[in-house]
Structures are given as C-alpha cells and as structure tokens.
C-alpha cells in the first residue's frame, strides 16, 4: 500500500499498462513533453518515446477518430480530451463511429480504445470548462463509461478500460486530482467495469453518487452519522453500465434512494437510476426518491456561486434529513 494522489494513480496506471502491453499508446493535447495539463501523463514520453506518447494539435475530432482507426488496426490507444466540455467536438467519432464499430461490423471489428477526460467541478473556470456530461455518453449503446472517485479506483478503472475490448470513456474529476488515497501498488488491480462500490454501509437511506460528488456525499454521510442517521453510500463508479443491482440491494434495506450528482437534472444518470428504481423495484421504495443536483443552469465562474451550484455536504445532509423524516411520517 502506498499513499498516492489521484493524478499519480492515473499516471501509474498508464505507466504500468504501457509497460505491460506495447500496443498501448497515448496521445492528446500537451500529453507529451509537458506531461499533460495536470500531470497525468508525466514522464511517459521520456520512458516510451515520442512515438508512443504524442502531442497532438488541438483537433479533438481527429484525435478520437485516430483513436478509433488505430484501435481497429492493432493498437490500444488511450487519448486525452482535456476537458469533457471539449468532447462536444468529437461526438461524431465517439458516438456514430467508435461506439458502433463492433455492432456495425457485426463483431468483425472491435475498438479497444480509451478516452480520458476531465469533468465537473473545477477551479472556477466557468461554463465551458466544468460540465458533467456523463449522461450523454452513458446513453450511447456501445460505450462504457467510468468515473473514479478515489486514487485506487483511478488506477484500477483505467486499467480495466485499457484492457476492455471496446471503447471506454474514463471521466476524471479535476477537483480530486490532488486528493490522496491508499493504492495497492504491488497488486495489478483491475476493476470490473459495471460494479459499484459500497463506500459506507447504513440502513437509514441509500445515497448514490460518483466522481467528486462522492467525496462530498461521504462528508454528508459523516455529518448525518453524527445525528444518528446511518446512510449507505454507494459509489456508482461505472455509469455505463450502471450497477442497478448493487443500488437495489441497498434500497431494499433502506427504502430510501437519494442520488447526488454534479450534472444538471434532466435526462441525467441520476434520472436513470431513479427511473430504474421506480420501474424495476418500485415496491422497495418506501418514499419518493430524491435527486440532488445543481440547478438547471450553466456552471458560473463565480467563486461564490459555484459553491452553491454543486451539492455541498451541508446541503446534502439537510436534504437527506428531510427525506428520512418523510418516512417517519409515513410509517
């Protein structure tokens, strides 16, 4: 076990996978010599050369298109789209092309490629550098989508993504980049894409979250525990597919489902989790489920406003208290 920062775990996973499999290559904007805007690709070009670690021009569509073409031709590309907001420029290649490559060829081709991208709460860089667009990709048949909230997961999910036979979008939380956690660096930990992690158990209410919001949800759960409310916290980790079974297992005990996310509400992953609960295990719900998310507005740059934009531990705890008392009334 070793204490690593989130970005160091990403860096380590890339390093390890590139050592393990020479088909793995990395390219994107500033990923080479500069080592990425936040260090995730640091040192890779030095070890693996300018052929396997390439700085690209600012051409997101071509970056993802090349990832696809090279993945269909024997490589295992890991490309970086610096911020998820910029994925808007590559949606054709990601959604019309990569996601459908296996299906359209009826399985003759596979596209073992990874798109890494930063999303969500960030350093006040505003409306075009802060969006959590996970629902767009989670909605697409053929894509897998993961979003680690801990350094250990940052490594094991990225490894799983690299080894997956199809395209995987790995979303990273910029605000967690310097957060620390224990990582079992001696073990070759490869996560199972599609499996959630129970971060905290509890019988009062089921809180589901992912990415940076998980950290705030756990903080809220700690506050709730002080009030005697034991909340289960599930880190979804994989948003495509979503581990509905794990969520259901908890809701069966608690009767309460609260989803906390940094994306806006409509047509979101939170909507999907709640809709699935209502459709598939309606009778396990003892009260209306709840979605805690930002207001339906772009992300402002304003320091003060950003804090009230994203669900904070205090706000989460307050809403959960209400939710739990609702049951009390009903019972």
């Amino acid at each position, binding site marked *: 076990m070793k204490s690593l920062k989130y970005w160091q775990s990403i860096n380590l996973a890339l390093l390890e996978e590139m050592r393990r499999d020479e088909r793995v*290559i990395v390219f994107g904007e500033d990923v080479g010599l500069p080592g990425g805007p936040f260090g995730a690709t640091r040192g890779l070009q030095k070890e693996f050369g300018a*052929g*396997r670690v*390439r700085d*690209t*021009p600012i*051409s997101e*569509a*071509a970056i*993802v*298109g*090349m*990832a*696809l*073409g*090279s*993945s*269909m*031709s*024997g*490589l295992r*590309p890991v490309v970086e789209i610096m911020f998820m907001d910029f994925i808007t420029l590559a949606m*054709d*290649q990601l959604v*019309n*092309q990569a996601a459908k*490559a*296996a*299906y*359209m*060829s*009826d*399985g*003759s*081709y*596979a*596209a*073992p490629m990874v798109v890494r991208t930063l999303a969500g709460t960030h350093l006040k860089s505003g409306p075009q550098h802060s969006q959590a667009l996970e629902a767009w990709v989670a909605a697409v*048949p*053929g894509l*897998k989508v993961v979003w680690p909230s801990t350094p250990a997961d940052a490594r094991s999910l990225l490894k799983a993504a690299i080894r997956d*036979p*199809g395209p995987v979008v790995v979303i990273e939380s910029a605000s967690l980049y310097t957060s620390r956690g224990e990582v079992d660096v001696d073990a070759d930990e490869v996560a199972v894409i599609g499996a959630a992690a129970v971060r905290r158990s509890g019988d009062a209410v089921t809180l589901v979250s992912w990415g940076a919001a998980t950290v705030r949800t756990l903080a809220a759960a700690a506050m709730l525990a002080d009030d005697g409310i034991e909340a289960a916290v599930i880190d979804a980790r994989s948003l495509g597919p979503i581990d509905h079974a794990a969520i259901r297992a908890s809701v069966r005990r608690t009767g309460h489902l609260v989803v906390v996310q940094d994306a806006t509400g409509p047509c979101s992953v939170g909507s999907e989790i709640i809709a699935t609960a209502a459709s598939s295990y309606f009778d396990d719900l003892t009260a209306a489920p709840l979605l805690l998310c930002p207001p339906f507005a772009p992300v402002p740059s304003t320091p003060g406003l950003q804090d009230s934009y994203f669900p904070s531990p205090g706000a989460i705890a307050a809403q959960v208290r209400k939710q739990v008392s609702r049951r009390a009334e009903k019972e």
Partner: protein
Amino acid sequence: MARIRQFEIAAERLQASGILESSLHLSIGQEAVAAGVCDALRRSDLITTTHRGHGHCIAKGGELAPMMGELFAKGGGYCGGKSGSMHIADPASGILGANAIVGAGIPIALGAALAFQQRGTDGVAVAFFGEGAVAEGVFHESLNIAALWALPIVFVCENNGYAEMTPVSVHLASADVAAFGAPYGIPASGVDGNDVLAVRQAAQQAVSAARNGAGPALLEARTYRWRGHYQGDPETYRTREEVEQWRERDPLRRLRAVLPGAADRFDDLDQQAMRLVNTAVDEVRGWPGTEAAALTEHVYATSA
C-alpha cells in the same frame, strides 16, 4: 472495374424491381478511381470509404457475395445484414469501413496509418471521400496531423462535381481540391478520375512514397456519377446533356480504347463479371435473413 459496374447495375436493377429493399448510392461512372487506387494497394493495407463505397470495397478485395448479402440484409452479409450498403466492413480484405457520415472515414484511416507506423510495418492507409467532405473540418485536421507525423496515408478525393444536389461551385471555394495539400507541404496531384491508368500511376507514386516513409499524399480524382445521388433522386440540379457528356468518358470504354486489341479480353471480363455477380445474387438470395437475435448482438465487443 467491370466487376464494380456489374455489381452496381445488378443492385440497381434488383432495387428497381422491388427485390432489394436497400437504399443505394451508386458509383457507376466512377469505377476507375476505386480500381486504379486499390491496384496500388496490398491486401493488408487498409481503407475507409463513404456512402458511395461499393467500388472501393470490391476493388480492395471485398467479395461479391457477402457484399451483396449485406445489401440484402442477410445473415451472411459482411455485417451480418445489420448495417447495409453504407457500412460494408471486412478485416480480411482490409476494409475498415464504409461510412454514412460525410468525412468521418478520414480520421479513422489516419488512425490506421498511425498503427502501421507505430507497429513498424510498411502498410499504407487510404481514405476515400467525396469532394463534399472537403468542407468538413475533420479533413483539414487530418491533413495537419498526417503531415506533422509523416503518416503513411493517401487521401483520395473523388471529385464528382456534386454533393447531393449541390454543385461543387456552391459548396467549395476552390476549383481544386489538390490545392489543400500545399499549406501542409503534402504532395498533391489532380488526375483524370475516369482514366484508370492515370489514377493507378498517381496512386502508385503516392502509395509507394507513403510505404517508404515519405509521409502522406493527397490525390484528387475528377470524375462524375452517372446515377443520381441516391436511387430515386429527381436530379433537377443537372442537365441530361451534362450526364451524356460524362457517359462519353466512360472509364471502362476508355480503357478498352487505349489497350489495343483488348476488346475480346474485355468482353470476356464483362461477361465473367456479370456471371460472378449473378452467381453471387443467386447464392445470396437463398441465404437466411438476419436473425432477430442479431438485433442486440455485438453492441459491445467481446474480445479484441
């Protein structure tokens, strides 16, 4: 060329008579580009193409039966009958895929070129696209990267004068697609796309340069489609005379004319192509259709 021509004529006929349900974008009249370029390629080289890609796929080595099978939505088609005319793909013959999104095949071919280079092989990738794709940004993004990294790719633009119903003068501010190579220092040339020997020569030069590490090339082949944009196109945007003029430049007849004494051999080839296509059609029509279960198969790759 004969095989492409016969394949498309057959498809056209079958569709017109209601036997084939597929929508079709035919390349009749443009066969010299496919044949000339693919003649310069190896089976292990890789291509991407477009909605108008039957010719490229056949010239690259795609077999008639699974191609026709795909049009007929048969389980034995190249894509299990799931994807149709605009999506032929076949690893065995080096077809990464036709594509229904204008321009989208270009960066995919670029990725294939990257793989060739990175794996240290001497393979070459070719991106076929229409002149309409020149207006899509990703074409230019791809030129830049190809030049920067000296990737083994040949960009082959089939300039047939129209993008759907819009003439090139309305959609492109350049009379000359080859001109787009210059800013990047990419060697570019324009060629008579109805002259298969000229196309082949230009392609051979570009392909062998790419194979030998000299980097990308851009080839513009000027040609014309005899049929509408799609089967059923009212073609109000052009005159019958214009079409007639281009029919005069039939790439198949022109090849006959320049290869003296070849008339008999060509007749044989035509006959043979027709037979092959007919055999393929007969065979394929007996195949079972795509099964219902295929609907949800291969959404996710199971191995790679």
